[in-house]
């Protein structure tokens, strides 16, 4: 079942490549604006890099949250999902994972290329990719709760950011913190472990919360 829903969402994403590309290009452009605006001060750029890449990743993954449930809601597929004999939590977990594969993974792959703009050393790039790899699924899972809660509301897009961005803060702190720790020559294990813990907790609790929010929104 999980497989079916992921396959379906990936198929839809392939048919509508523009949605995937806008998210990725948004990420690329936001990250590229900073070196252009603050000037080629290498030391400054190196210290700013982890924070900028992470903030851009947060905004980019939020950009696509509106579409996560709204198209299914408008064409009636979501009703059918609610009536599926399968557990709704499993279905929404599949949708959140598909969202991550479509929006999160391209960001993770693109991040090292963008890191070069900021003159990040190779091992810092590695830590950046690792932290994004652990952190972006959390963004998709938490974001899906916000998307489910604001489903069918007018101006839901802005409301999602207000709901979800504060919840992203811990991921941002430890994600960017891991890279900073590595550049300061300290161990970054603790940061990555905490990100892993966030991932596990949200994998367990978020699907349940998303399913409950969807049921409320569909009443």
């Amino acid at each position, binding site marked *: 079942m999980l497989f079916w829903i992921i396959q*379906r969402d990936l198929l839809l994403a392939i*048919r509508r490549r523009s949605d995937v590309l806008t998210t990725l290009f948004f990420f690329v452009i936001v990250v590229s604006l900073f070196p252009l605006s603050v000037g080629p001060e290498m030391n400054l750029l190196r210290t700013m890099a982890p924070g900028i890449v992470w903030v851009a990743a947060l905004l980019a993954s939020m950009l696509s949250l509106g579409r996560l449930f709204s198209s299914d809601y408008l*064409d009636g597929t979501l*009703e059918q999902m609610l009536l599926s*004999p399968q557990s709704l939590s499993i279905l929404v977990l599949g949708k959140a994972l598909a969202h991550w594969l479509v929006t999160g993974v391209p960001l993770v792959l693109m991040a090292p290329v963008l890191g070069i703009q900021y003159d990040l050393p190779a091992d810092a790039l590695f830590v950046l990719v690792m932290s994004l790899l652990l952190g972006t699924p959390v963004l998709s899972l938490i974001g899906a709760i916000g998307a489910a809660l604001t489903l069918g509301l007018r101006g839901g897009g802005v409301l999602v950011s207000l709901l979800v961005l504060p919840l992203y803060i811990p991921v941002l702190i430890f994600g960017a913190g891991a890279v900073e720790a590595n550049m300061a020559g300290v161990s970054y294990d603790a940061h990555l472990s905490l990100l892993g813990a966030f991932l596990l907790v949200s994998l367990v609790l978020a699907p349940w919360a998303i399913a409950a929010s969807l049921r409320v929104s569909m*009443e």
Partner: protein
Amino acid sequence: MLQGINLACVRGDRRLFKAVNFTLEAGGLMQVHGPNGSGKTSLLRILCGLSSPALGEINWCGASIRDLKGEYFSNLTYIGHLSGTKDDLTVLENLRISSALAGEHVSEIQARDALMRMGLNGREFLPAKVLSQGQRRRVALARLLVCKTKLWILDEPLAALDVMAVQLIQELLERHLAEKGLVVMTTHQAIDVAAISTVHLRLT
């Protein structure tokens, strides 16, 4: 089998209906009548468990559907106003994926057979966005052919269908009822479905 006890529905501060009671046995057909805005769709959504009634209880085989959940859903096919077809998927993919969601794995041959019977042969590989309203409806209704559920809840199944398709749906309903299935439907069109027992529920 399906029993509604003292159902009431409130939307905002307007009461749509109250004290709705009915019992539907195996092989029974329930037609819900009423003018626009009388709560037909709301009643069907309540029967599906999509929304909860303001008052009252719905029982399936003697147990409340609120407790049964998945077990009830595995007996139920609901086709609402929204057809649940994805514009970017082909007709065949739409049918196979929506059936898989309903817990019924349909092979490609079965799915093509069902689409042919719904008069959609030759259009299996078209994306749903190029279909007409009536054809979309047929794609949604093709699910009735592949899913072996007992209870069908159909909201305006005949909307946008041509005479041939209406005939087809009528035969489909009669066969389902003859096989001890249950049907709850709303329609504004006159349709004459033979059933062991027919309940007419009028909402005002």
